């Protein structure tokens, strides 16, 4: 067994190896020793606008053709898992949403679900519905960034402004709810930090009635654009078998013909109550991966609409005093409430020993927090199954033997968020 240095990308390929590669026909060329031929090693990133943050890839090129591709990651490693092991369970929501900064509510939800499973918490229905609404809105916002930046990578600037316009509206909704536009920290173990403000549901309704028209606009801007179609159809094809082999999940896997969606397969937070479809495609190319997300926008809107209809006034926190803080008014009259408040604020709760994992569907794929509890007030081990990191491996089968310009389209179509990759 050999352990290599991270900067060891393997030996550069010699002239003989290039000339004897399958597919290379040498006819009237001089012999390999006379004719200086070797693969060009090109470094892309980490600071490059088309690499979605700080992804660095080292590619070996034969002319324009990609022969080898090695993703090099870790530039955004923050040590969230280790930090969360040294904070109480409730403080964990401060960190979870910072990993995938485009779909923060998805991470928040995955984290609190795991802790709630450990605690057997009873989350009120209203809290679950609000979580679903926010999660789906965030999924839409995340896909909007995907379209904007993805098409931007292929050279079309305009769509970016349109998608950012609608994302802005969604971020305004989030600001209404929790005061921030990113890094929300709004979910709590056992419910929500506070109820949604007045006028929020109307604002969401207003947004979802206007939004389908905007989607039509996007489709008109890029989906029927000849340049886009020619650059993406048949490019970076991942077959069903390859996708499963490389552990691909999420919309990219559904574009390869596997209808796996954990909102349907293992419903959480009340997703079983909503009627929605899981769009799939059997093409498996970049075009299919883009279209899959367009179709998902409509499904998310359906879920939000149903959740809004079902929303009834009620509590938003688990009534169990060992999990949720007591209401503020009670602190003035009840000594017991003060004690619970003090215990929760200083050391938090103590889940029983055990290990749990709850898979959820983030905008990028399977997302789950594996938590190990030792009976203390802080998780003993936090392991996040981040979709972006595992999905990034599919870059290799998608890009090999394609042209270099298609690599950029492939990276965009897999939708990696580097915070999610590096943790």
């Amino acid at each position, binding site marked *: 067994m050999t*352990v290599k240095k991270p900067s060891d990308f393997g030996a550069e390929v010699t002239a003989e190896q290039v000339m004897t590669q399958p597919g290379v026909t040498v006819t009237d060329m001089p012999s390999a020793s006379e004719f200086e031929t070797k693969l060009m090693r090109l470094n892309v990133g980490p600071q490059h606008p088309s690499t979605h943050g700080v992804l660095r890839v080292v590619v070996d090129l034969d002319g324009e053709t990609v022969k080898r591709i090695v993703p090099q*990651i870790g530039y955004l490693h923050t040590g969230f898992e280790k930090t969360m092991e040294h904070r109480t369970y409730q403080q964990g929501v401060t960190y979870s949403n910072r990993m995938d900064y485009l779909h923060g509510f998805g991470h928040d939800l995955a984290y609190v679900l795991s802790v709630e499973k450990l605690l057997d918490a009873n989350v009120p229905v209203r809290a679950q519905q609000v979580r679903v609404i926010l999660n789906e809105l965030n999924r839409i916002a995340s896909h909007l960034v995907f379209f904007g930046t993805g098409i931007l990578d292929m050279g079309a600037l305009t769509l970016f402004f349109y998608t950012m316009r609608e994302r802005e509206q969604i971020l305004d909704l989030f600001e209404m709810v929790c005061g921030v536009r990113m890094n929300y920290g709004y979910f709590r173990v056992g419910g929500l930090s506070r109820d949604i403000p007045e006028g929020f549901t109307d604002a969401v309704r207003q947004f979802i009635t206007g939004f389908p028209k905007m989607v039509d606009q996007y489709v008109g801007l890029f989906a029927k654009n000849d340049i886009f179609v020619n650059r993406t159809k048949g490019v970076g094809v991942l077959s069903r078998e390859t996708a499963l082999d490389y*552990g691909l999940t999420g919309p990219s896997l559904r574009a390869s013909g596997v209808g796996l969606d954990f909102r349907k397969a293992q419903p959480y937070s009340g997703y079983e109550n909503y009627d929605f479809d899981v769009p799939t495609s059997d093409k498996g190319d970049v075009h299919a991966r883009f279209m899959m997300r367009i179709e998902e926008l409509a499904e998310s809107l359906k879920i939000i609409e149903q959740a809004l209809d079902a929303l009834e006034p009620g509590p938003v926190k688990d009534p169990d005093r060992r999990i949720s803080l007591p209401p503020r008014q009670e602190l003035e009259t009840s000594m017991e409430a003060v004690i619970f408040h003090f215990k929760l604020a200083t050391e938090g709760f103590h889940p029983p020993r055990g290990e749990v994992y709850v898979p959820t569907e983030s905008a990028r794929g399977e997302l789950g927090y594996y938590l190990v509890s030792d009976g203390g007030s802080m998780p003993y081990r936090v392991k996040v199954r981040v979709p972006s*990191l*595992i999905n990034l491996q599919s870059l290799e089968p998608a890009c090999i033997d394609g042209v270099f310009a298609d690599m950029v389209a492939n990276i965009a179509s897999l939708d990696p968020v580097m915070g999610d990759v590096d943790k």
Partner: protein
Amino acid sequence: MSLVERLVDELKPLGGKPAEFKRMISVTIDSEHIVEAVKNAKTAGFEMISDIFGIDYLNYPQHQGKRFSVAYNLYSISANERIFIRVNINEGEVLPTITHLWNGASFMEREVYDMFGIEFDGHPDLRKLITPEDLDGHPHRKDFPIGETPTLFNEGRFIDPAAFRSGLTGQDAGLSGHQGGMRKGYRTDANEEA
């Protein structure tokens, strides 16, 4: 009989010890049988490897047995079931790779190597995945300190955060530049039997 139950029975001759917690089923296997066990799971219908991760039980209260645990998180799409196959190993022991079963296991094994220093025999490209090349140690081990810890890089560069900050600001470094290990979780004895 569900797929997981069938697989658990199948793994019993290999020394598989099943355990269940909150409807999550895991099977602990001896490290020499791990490839066979994972292969059995794949042929039984677990077509997707979801994750491979390590756990360091160094500080776990009343932990007996080996220090590390490596878990293989396998998912069957057709049966919609999940199983965790686990192996317990000590420091210095080497695990065989499963990258020949799933190419997707490559990053997962590299992450375990990076974070815990557990090496995988036969991995085609075993390199650190996330941490910088010149960082010594494996951050997810429980004896790796957290916080404002002076960091020694293996080229000899040494950074003490408090001194570093005081060099920038001109202020006194203060008494303590090291907070790692000061925060400890509270433990109650009430649920230790759980």
